[in-house]
């Protein structure tokens, strides 16, 4: 069941995104936050309709864009904030070239050593943002003791 996200949790998540990626908190002023189980969704703010009135209706499939797949563990959705400009991300990102981006979509391993120093700014393990050609392509997981990253959510073997 969808419900409005508690303001305290909303602020906690925004603070996390700010501290993890340097995303300006003000960006999120344009969105309302909702949750369904452990998932968190953002919806563009509007002031004509009280969304609360439709949250409990049957056959409500989804709201806006999924931001967190599991907000309790700060697990971001694979396509979280791909509509934002890459300049909103200040840290914990990697910049991929075209071949590496293809690997990303094929769910192939991308070795860290293959990404030049100037193309990665990673401060700690966890969620990192993948950037290609100045655009955010999605979220990847950087795990301790792993020498590679991979996307295990989207898979398209035929990517050109």
């Amino acid at each position, binding site marked *: 069941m969808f419900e409005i996200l508690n303001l305290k949790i909303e602020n906690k998540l925004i603070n996390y995104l700010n501290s993890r990626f340097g995303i300006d908190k003000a960006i999120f002023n344009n969105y309302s936050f909702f949750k369904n189980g452990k998932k968190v969704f953002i919806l563009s703010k509007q002031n004509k309709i009280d969304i609360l009135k439709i949250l409990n209706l049957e056959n409500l499939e989804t709201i806006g*864009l999924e931001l967190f797949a599991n907000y309790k563990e700060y697990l971001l959705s694979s396509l979280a904030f791909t509509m934002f400009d890459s300049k909103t991300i200040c840290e914990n990102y990697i910049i991929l070239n075209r071949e590496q981006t293809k690997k990303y*979509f094929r769910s192939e391993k991308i070795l860290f050593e293959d990404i030049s120093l100037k193309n990665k700014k990673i401060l700690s393990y966890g969620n990192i943002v993948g950037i290609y050609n100045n655009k955010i392509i999605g979220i990847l997981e950087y795990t301790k003791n792993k020498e590679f990253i991979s996307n295990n959510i989207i898979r*398209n073997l035929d990517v050109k």
Partner: protein
Amino acid sequence: MKSKVIIPDKFISKFKEIINPEEIDSFILYCKKKLTKSIRVNTLKYKGDITKNIYFEENKIILKQIKYVKQAYLIKSEVSSIGNTIEQLLGYFQIQEVSSMLPALILNPNENDIVLDLTAAPGNKTAFLAQIMNNKGLIIANDIDETRIKTLKYTLKKLGVTNTIIFSKDGIDFDINLKFNKILLDAPCSCEGIVRKKPRSLINWSEQLVKSKSDLQKKLILNAYDLLEKNGTLVYSTCTMSPEENEEVIDYLIKKRPNLKIENVNIENLNTNYGIIKYKLKEYNKNIKNAIRIYPHKTDLEGFFICKIKRI
């Protein structure tokens, strides 16, 4: 392997009564002609000039911008794998037929509108509505088909749409205690217009199919109209050309809800036909002339019908 376009004789016989006799050969010829692929640039994710994008430049793919849909481009080169490019997967553009972009343009929602897309899957039109609204306002996107809902969700996610709520209800009695100022009803239809893209799409075509779709469309349009606010706008569209699924549906609505206005639809630089007001022994409301028919042989697009209705 290329599929041969199959056009049943009974389909040709029917359209001899609809299309101008001097044009019927050209109509059939174009129904068999392969459709030029087209893309819509998703400005929610891609702000630059798509023709300068590395994929199109490196592969020397020629794109031609369409005059009447500034976000749309025809792909003038032979390409087989554009659906698997990084750019497509990142949602920079969507492969979409030009005709199917027009209903959203004609509805023309603004950033404050509350819009209903009553039969929304697979979501290309919903995403275009969101693009026109700059991801602001609110879209309620609905579809009854569970499989198609999955595609709808994926399409909107990939294209970065954040102003949409999805429901999976039957459009015939869809009601969430809201009235809308803009509604798009791109109704399920017999798909006569898509034969250029899907050569075998007319194999199961029959007058019974047209009739069954028409019956469904009448129920859908009545509910869609009743969900409109006063002065609200409903755009009704189909990718089919039989009058029973188009003008007859609008005529039915006018008889049931006479207090409405059929607004003129005009797309500059596109050679459209007026809505039909006489077909066989039937005479439809004369204002239906304000609707448009898009014929393959006049436009080099898919066949389509679009009507703009205002609640007064």
